[in-house]
């Protein structure tokens, strides 16, 4: 076994030193009838070649995003990742390091967490950010719990245009914590009307799951007037390069999915949740925080801080049960964002926007197809004659991954039947767009 260094001789010598006659003597506390006589009924060890073949066989059954004209978004986005990013995150000292509880030998991790927090605060336009959540959806759920702690209320009002997976993630924890959730109508306009002073927070997504971009300033005022917090969710982090940030529109907590910057699609995870808020709410924030300090010689250094909020100290009184963060994805985000800088991010965002506009123009010309958005960044929704899911499936048969049928996210909602959510990023070419428009014309 290539991963196990002990030889049979080693094992013999070690048992002798311990003073037992065989390995099972060390398992003496296990009830005799519960100790397995042999290994479970699963395949035996395989060589690298065989593992590569076995997993390769599974992998080739899937269609990789890079291999086709690709327009799928709705919460995860296909972007180009510089080779530098993937190289650096695989360095042993990053990849195989532990949570930086021993700061003297973890300054590498701690400094990039500090850099990340600075980047996230700047991108979202907020005061302070944590060292990441698991992803955007769990971050949103934590944001709601945090708002409950801050306001001492237990009712969340959620926009129907929030990504339904996010909404369900919030609803699930809320239900078990006996908190209340109210949801406004998808693509409706009944959100603001439901704000009252029993509400702890209002959760909106911007750009929303249909791609629409809105000015939230007035909403924020109304929320604040009711003594509640405005939680803004962003699923496309590239939009921070071009769209007015939530912090400038009055958000109290910003939760974002950071996948677009540095993290591959990988079927939905691991991703990296961005979480930022106002300084006044800092001590109610969940998750790890890296902070600046000095060492015994007065040199600048970084440590995990404010851990009195966390479960390993506070146990049942913790602000959250979160333990792990998304360290390596944070690193990928930080490196990619460092390479981009604001100049590169802005340019990348403009390319995304321009490509989406070009795509909307092309698809809008297909007979029977209507682009529904008034505004959008790099994603929008089209109405097609017939069933959106069927159309997407037929496009896939033609080798084009054309978007997400809204019915997949809103099962059973008849209003969604003919809608497709379509995204376009910097990876799309003129040829891709032309191929999509032509194929769409053909399948309709």
């Amino acid at each position: 076994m290539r991963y196990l260094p002990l030889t049979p001789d080693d094992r013999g010598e070690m048992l002798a030193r311990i003073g037992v006659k065989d390995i099972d003597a060390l398992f003496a506390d296990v009830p005799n009838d519960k100790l397995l006589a042999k290994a479970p009924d699963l395949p035996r060890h395989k060589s690298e070649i065989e593992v590569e073949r076995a997993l390769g066989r599974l992998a080739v059954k899937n269609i990789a995003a890079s291999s086709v004209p690709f327009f799928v978004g709705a919460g995860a986005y296909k972007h180009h990742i510089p080779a530098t990013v993937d190289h650096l995150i695989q360095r042993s000292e990053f990849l195989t390091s532990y949570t930086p509880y021993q700061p003297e030998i973890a300054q590498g991790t701690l400094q990039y967490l500090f850099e990340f927090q600075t980047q996230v605060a700047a991108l979202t336009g907020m005061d302070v950010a944590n060292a990441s959540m698991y992803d955007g959806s769990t971050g949103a759920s934590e944001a709601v719990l945090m708002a409950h702690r801050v306001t001492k209320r237990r009712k969340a009002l959620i926009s129907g245009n929030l990504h339904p997976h996010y909404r369900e993630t919030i609803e699930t924890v809320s239900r078990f914590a006996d908190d209340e959730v109210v949801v406004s109508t998808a693509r409706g306009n009944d959100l603001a009307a439901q704000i009252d002073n029993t509400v702890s927070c209002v959760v909106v997504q911007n750009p929303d799951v249909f791609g629409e971009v809105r000015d939230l300033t007035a909403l924020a005022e109304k929320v604040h007037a009711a003594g509640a917090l405005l939680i803004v969710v962003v699923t496309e982090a590239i939009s921070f390069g071009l769209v007015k940030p939530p912090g400038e529109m009055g958000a109290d907590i910003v939760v974002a999915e950071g996948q677009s910057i540095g993290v591959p699609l990988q079927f939905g995870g691991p991703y990296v949740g961005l979480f930022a808020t106002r300084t006044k709410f800092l001590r109610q924030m969940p998750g790890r925080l890296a902070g600046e300090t000095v060492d015994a010689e007065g040199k600048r250094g970084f440590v995990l801080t404010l851990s009195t909020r966390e479960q390993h100290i506070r146990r049942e009184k913790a602000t959250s049960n979160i333990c792990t963060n998304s360290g390596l994805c944070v690193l990928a985000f930080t490196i990619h964002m460092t390479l981009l800088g604001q100049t590169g991010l802005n340019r990348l965002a403009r390319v995304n926007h321009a490509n989406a506009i070009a795509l909307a123009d092309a698809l809008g010309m297909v007979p029977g197809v209507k682009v529904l958005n008034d505004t959008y960044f790099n994603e929008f929704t089209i109405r097609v004659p017939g069933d959106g899911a069927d159309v997407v499936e037929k496009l896939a048969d033609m080798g084009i991954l054309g978007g997400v049928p809204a019915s997949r996210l809103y099962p059973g909602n008849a209003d969604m039947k003919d809608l497709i959510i379509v995204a376009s990023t910097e990876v799309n070419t003129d040829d891709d767009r032309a191929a999509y428009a032509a194929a769409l014309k053909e399948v309709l």
Partner: protein
Amino acid sequence: VEEALIFEIGRHEVTGVDIDEPKDFKSKLGALERTGDIGLPGLSEPETMRHFVRLSQKNYGIDTGLFPLGSCTMKHNPRLNEKMARLPGIGDIHPLQPLSTVPGAIELIGELGRWLCELTGMPAVAMTPKAGAHGELCGMMAIKAAIEARGEKRSIVLVPESAHGTNPATAALIGYQVVSVPAREDGTVDPEEVKKRLSPDVAAIMLTNPNTCGLFERDVVAIADAVHAAGAFFYADGANFNAIVGKVRPGDLGVDAMHINLHKTFSTPHGGGGPGAGPVVLSKALAPFAPVPFVVVEDGNARLVENTSDAGDAQPLGRMCAFHGQMGMYIRAMSYMLSHGTDGMRQASEDAVLNANYIRASLTDLMSLPFGNRACMHEALFDDTWLDGTGVTTLDFAKAMIDEGYHPMTMYFPLVVHGAMLIEPTESESKASLDLFIAALRDLALSAKRGETDRFSGAPYHAPRRRLDETRAARSPILKWTPPKPVQEAAE
């Protein structure tokens, strides 16, 4: 060599990513353009490379040395797993692509689930939790759902004192009152103490086995029976599963739910704090409540149930997160499992236990064992009795290990032991490596006993930083970089 922050060396107009300017377009943002400076300078590619390479050099990792962290299982991370995770058909597929374009992904999730069920002896698994603590939450919600489904309401969860902090935090998060169970003299849970606390209001016990003292809960079956007899459920914290894979199946011990830290037991990299993955295996009683999405394998065909509306007879407790969980971790764990095989995983558990006992046996003459010199599982727990009168604390001792080239062991955990030092070498260490480690620890221990306190109180001396002022960090937190004030303003 000191390394500045990216904000101190970057320049606003620099970017390390070339991309052509877009052609002219008419904005569709509805006048919501971002204006003003974001405040994020860029670095060219060579500067970026050097910055992060240098940062990495300030870190310690498994690849650079032994990582004796009890209860955290820092084992070898094969690079084959990283390679597999980067196959285009795995790393470059979107969670909302048509399901017809991702059958291999669904199959992989189903297959990993099958391995986890076989190894734990449990009938079902919820794959989507994103980390151990998230898995705990999932498991405890399943328990709550099952209790509600039978029309009951229970409000108490029993948690032994030695438990990980996530256990009580999780129980509290979904409204349970936590009742602590004390450990008995020998470091294990007394079934009588459990029985004393059981009542119709108890929903579950959360038990780690092997426990955080490095001991197998020898009365686990009696505890499970008592819990079940009281109509409650047995939640197992799987953090220490690495000691028993292929040797003992939690399902055979009466466990109803157990999360599995894929990064601990199945070698997905810890990555400086994540990402992890925390699938939860479930007993028959809890299986119907598994959250969406989940994979059903029928006649060898894997099928995804994505929404509650498609769940048929099942009663999903809801959704833990967007999409399908941590595919990037699944593939790494699967690659590890296929490589080891059932034989290798059993051997790995044995070697992990052997290595821990070898350390125990080699240090017991110098350091004190809180529960006597008996066999441990995959981690050896010492207390600080042996340091009495030396003027050296557990913290000092741990920091002095850094100067010897080692990451400290886990300190002051579990809380039930005074000045705890929890050492877990894992199966990844060779005998030669253990011998060096033991020699270093013996040397330090003798040094402490000789009263060479300077070596400890000031440690580490040979790390990128000396001991850091954590109090200062917490008192007035600096959580992001802010530009220095212009000289003029600062002078005013």
